[in-house]
């Protein structure tokens, strides 16, 4: 905590970064805050709260393209940043990430398999294995019961777009989910399951499994389970895991250089 504060202070003083995106303790609550003045740093906090910081920095970085920015990153933020770099939304050379490893409590709550970034200055690395119980429970249901389960859950949707708005890897300026011919306007719940299937498909090769969508959902749709499954499908078919720091292109992005070919046969 102190380490982070000192580090940020030095960088701001040196002028290496123009601003630092972290969290500020305001009236007992941790809020995302862009630190530009040294005086504010005394309220810098890590807390147990999670915000889509990668998504917030996206807007700031677009507006101030010439500036170097610092950002606090947890394991999930780092994965999000990697996906944003890969999709050419952010310039890696302009960002200075400050790693923070999550506490065991938070990691367990998030069901996070990697609750720390590749480099961090606060906390310690903890290994927690992902708990697949919910996923396995759904997978083991027979087809029609599985359909019933999902329709029940998805039918609660109030189409608030919260899952999309909080998603750190959702960056498109024009969203398919607002395409009127595809998603009829003013209909609540939206067309089930087309609305959620559309979004789920967009998460293929992109979802970093941070779980913010499910946390943000006001009607508790198990969205993370759905997108987690999509992530696993992509891993199984193309051996690709979004958020890994490798020099590869997402299999869904490229038309095909042969590297992700699917063998012919009974599709």
């Amino acid at each position, binding site marked *: 905590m102190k380490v982070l504060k000192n580090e940020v202070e030095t960088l701001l003083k040196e002028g290496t970064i123009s601003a630092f995106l972290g969290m500020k303790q305001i009236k007992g609550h941790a809020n995302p805050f862009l630190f530009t003045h040294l005086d504010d740093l005394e309220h810098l906090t890590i807390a147990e709260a999670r915000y889509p910081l990668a998504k917030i920095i996206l807007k700031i970085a677009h507006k101030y393209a010439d500036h170097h920015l610092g950002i606090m990153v947890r394991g999930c933020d780092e994965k999000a940043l990697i996906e944003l770099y890969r999709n050419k939304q952010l310039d890696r050379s302009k960002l200075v990430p400050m790693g923070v490893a999550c506490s065991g409590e938070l990691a367990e709550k998030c069901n996070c398999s990697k609750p720390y970034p590749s480099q961090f200055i606060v906390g310690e690395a903890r290994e927690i294995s992902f708990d697949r119980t919910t996923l396995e429970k*759904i*997978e083991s249901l027979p*087809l*029609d*019961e*599985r*359909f*019933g*389960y*999902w*329709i029940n859950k998805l*039918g609660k949707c109030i189409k608030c777009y919260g899952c999309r708005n909080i998603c750190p890897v959702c960056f498109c300026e024009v969203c*398919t989910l607002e395409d009127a011919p*595809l998603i009829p306007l003013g209909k609540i*719940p939206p*067309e*089930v*399951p*087309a609305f959620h*299937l*559309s979004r*789920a*498909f967009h998460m*293929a090769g992109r979802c970093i499994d941070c779980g913010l969508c499910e946390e943000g959902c006001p009607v508790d749709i198990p969205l993370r389970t*759905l997108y987690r*499954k*999509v992530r696993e*499908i*992509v891993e*199984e*078919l*193309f051996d690709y895991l979004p958020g890994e720091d490798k020099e590869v292109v997402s*299999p*869904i992005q490229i*038309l*095909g250089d042969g590297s*992700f*070919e*699917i063998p*012919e046969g009974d*599709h």
Partner: protein
Amino acid sequence: MLEESSFEPKIITFCCNWCSYAGADLAGGMRLKYSSNIRPIRVMCSGRISPHFIIKAFQEGADGVLVTGCHIGDCHYMKGNYITAKRVAILKELLNFIGISPDRLRLEWIAASEGDKFARVADEFTKKIKALGPSSIKNISFNK
């Protein structure tokens, strides 16, 4: 419950302009008889078939969706069908997870010279969908 014989499924068939639509044309030209349950939609390339088209087709009450295109390597736009293959593979798994039989979605490569294959696939797929019964998406009350 409808009896198997009386159930006539609606099958949306996406055909690419260059291969499979010509294949369908040839099937007609050859006077081949095939299932009338399929409703062809011509698109310029199978790569044009966004997963949303398929999802929307199911949502609007299709009992099956047949995606057809040029054989791998024969695409008029070089690589269009590569992306189709990937999309369909993901979508099948996704449909399965959400509780829709993945057999309701089928991908076939049909060349312009394969009129007989088009007819055969249409018949096979219709038979399969008839066996699966009507799509359960049509029964969701709050979508009506």
